[in-house]
């Protein structure tokens, strides 16, 4: 097991795309760090740089304190689980598990013992003689995990390992991975674009965008104190309602259409350009008589059983993750209790939790974060 350190890492591709930009990140020994971001944000490239499949253009990678920039994949002692599992199709499950050990010149008896042990821990014993094509998606995923585990590497790299599974299996295997990681305490970097996976798995989550690290922190911290508009919009579903901040002349309240929301907490400086409210910052007005009231008309309603998501026309100019005004009629989302008597195209009185306001400057950086 080993800590991973990335210092000022740079990677550009032949077409000029800068996949990773001046990225500095530390992953503690035994930690599970999730790399989260939309497609093309550089998270898989980062994993490939760590594995030695790509060479960085600048910066340094250290594994266990040892610089590994000049080392090939085989010398780094990392194991990777690929999105499509990359099981060797011409080998049985046993062959797949044995391969990394054979490549390291391990003795036959030691290989057999290690393979049996790994197979037992993952419930793969009945499948050992089967070929990958005779396995279900979940079983293939387990074999891929087994092949990574069997070598007892210093670092695990997982590149969207659950994305080919159906929703139910994904939840199951997600829990298994979390449990396994806790048991083995192997330093793990886990790439995903699925924020539920990120929130449930990671000790810490690193959010990437266009190769730039946006924020690193515990999942709850990211949700509650996003460092910028991008993280605010990317983490959370439905995403945070972001809008241009207009204050009353005395600066003591925020204008939300006809409603003035008194600013709780520290008064934002003149720098405040954008504000955000999570969907749960709204509640039916009658349940929160002390909150300022926003009167809206429900444009769309999603009843999810335990909760209802009411969408209404944004009373303030809505903006996207770049602070650009959204085109067309932008909607805001409110998360309401499942039994809340609300229907589509009907008026709704919402209370607004002023303490839940997030503030961002003109560059999209969070204020008071």
């Amino acid at each position: 097991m080993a800590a991973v350190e990335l210092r000022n890492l740079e990677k550009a591709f032949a077409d000029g795309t800068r996949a990773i930009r001046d990225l500095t990140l530390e992953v503690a020994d035994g930690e599970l760090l999730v790399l989260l971001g939309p497609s093309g944000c550089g998270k898989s490239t980062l994993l490939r740089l760590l594995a030695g499949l790509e060479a960085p253009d600048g910066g340094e990678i250290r594994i266990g304190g040892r610089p590994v920039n000049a080392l090939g994949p085989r010398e780094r002692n990392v194991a990777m689980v690929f999105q499509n599992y990359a099981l060797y199709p011409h080998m049985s499950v046993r062959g797949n598990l044995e391969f990394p050990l054979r490549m390291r010149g391990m003795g036959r008896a030691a290989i057999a013992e290690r393979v049996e042990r790994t197979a037992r821990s993952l419930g793969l014993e009945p499948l050992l003689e089967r070929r990958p094509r005779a396995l279900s998606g979940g079983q293939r995923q387990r074999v891929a995990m087994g092949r990574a585990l069997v070598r007892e590497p210093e670092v695990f790299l997982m590149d969207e390992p659950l994305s080919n599974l159906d929703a139910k299996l994904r939840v199951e295997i997600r829990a298994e991975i979390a449990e396994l990681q806790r048991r083995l305490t192997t330093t793990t970097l886990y790439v995903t674009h699925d924020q539920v996976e990120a929130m449930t798995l990671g000790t810490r989550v690193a959010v990437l965008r266009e190769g730039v690290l946006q924020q690193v922190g515990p999942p709850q911290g990211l949700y509650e104190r996003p460092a910028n508009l991008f993280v605010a919009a990317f983490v959370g579903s439905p995403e945070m309602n972001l809008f241009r901040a207009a204050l009353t002349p005395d600066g003591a309240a925020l204008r939300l259409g006809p409603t003035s929301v008194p600013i709780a907490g520290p008064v934002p400086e003149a720098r405040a350009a954008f504000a955000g409210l999570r969907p749960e910052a709204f509640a039916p007005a009658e349940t929160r008589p002390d909150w300022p009231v926003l009167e809206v008309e429900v444009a769309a309603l999603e009843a999810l059983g335990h909760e209802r998501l009411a969408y209404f026309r944004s009373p303030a100019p809505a903006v996207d993750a770049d602070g650009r005004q959204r085109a067309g009629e932008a909607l805001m989302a409110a998360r309401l209790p499942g039994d809340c008597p609300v229907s589509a195209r009907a008026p709704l009185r919402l209370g607004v939790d002023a303490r839940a306001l997030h503030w961002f400057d003109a560059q999209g950086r969070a204020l008071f974060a």
Partner: protein
Amino acid sequence: MSRPARTARARPRGRWRRPAAVLLSYLAVTACAAVFLAPILFMAIGSLKPDARVLAEAGGWHAFWPGAGAGLGNYGDVFRRVPFMHYLLNSLWINGLIVVLGLPVNAFAGYALARLRWRGRELALAAVLAILVIPFEAIAVPLFYELTALGMRDSYTVQVIPFIANPLSIYLFYSFFLGLPRELEEAARIDGAGVLRTFLTIVVPNAKAAFASVTIVSFLFYWGMYLWPLLVTGGPGVRPLPLGIATFYTLPPLQWGDILAFGMMMVAPVLVVFVIFQRWFVRGVAATGLKG
């Protein structure tokens, strides 16, 4: 209520239409197949006929009918008049060497072009593609002078060496390796395999289809070659089958039945090679069970 009635009305028409379409497509396919099969059938049946009838009946449907007096006499004649087995063994030896030596050479070249990063790779690939479109006949004469200068004339070597590296084989391997999931090789590299080990233990076992295609293509390439062995060989010692069949034209009287029988025996090994490898020939990497 109305649905069953509609179905009942629609059914007879559908029942009539489908077989008609099937019949038409079968007829079209049969006609195409007939065009390609006719010469082979002509050769097969002609090889069984007494010599006098082969040309006499060539213009009509009788060409495809053995008729009275058909037998294996022409086959016996072939063995009596020319050293057929000698030519056959020469051809098998030369083609076998071309395939056996060509597979690793072309596979390595295809892999290097598809996967390895090296200076001049694009140029090399362009050169392979350029050579692919140059007909062999265009370079036969300069090649002849080159190999004559090296003292290789009238040998098996001169018939094997120029054909080991084959641009078509390289291109077939190249395009197949490009289509193999890269992650397989990356997984092997992370698991500790070097480039050569990855190629031999991961890539090659998953490239049976490419190896089968290249085996067939490279076997066929020289099997029917006439010009090159004619240029570089002097006597029957190292000559292959196509030159063997040509000796009939120098052995009067001209016996067409014998020539067709020789032709049949020349085609047979090609068919055997095809039958052995066609199972993998059509099999794609889709069946490798990579993705769920």
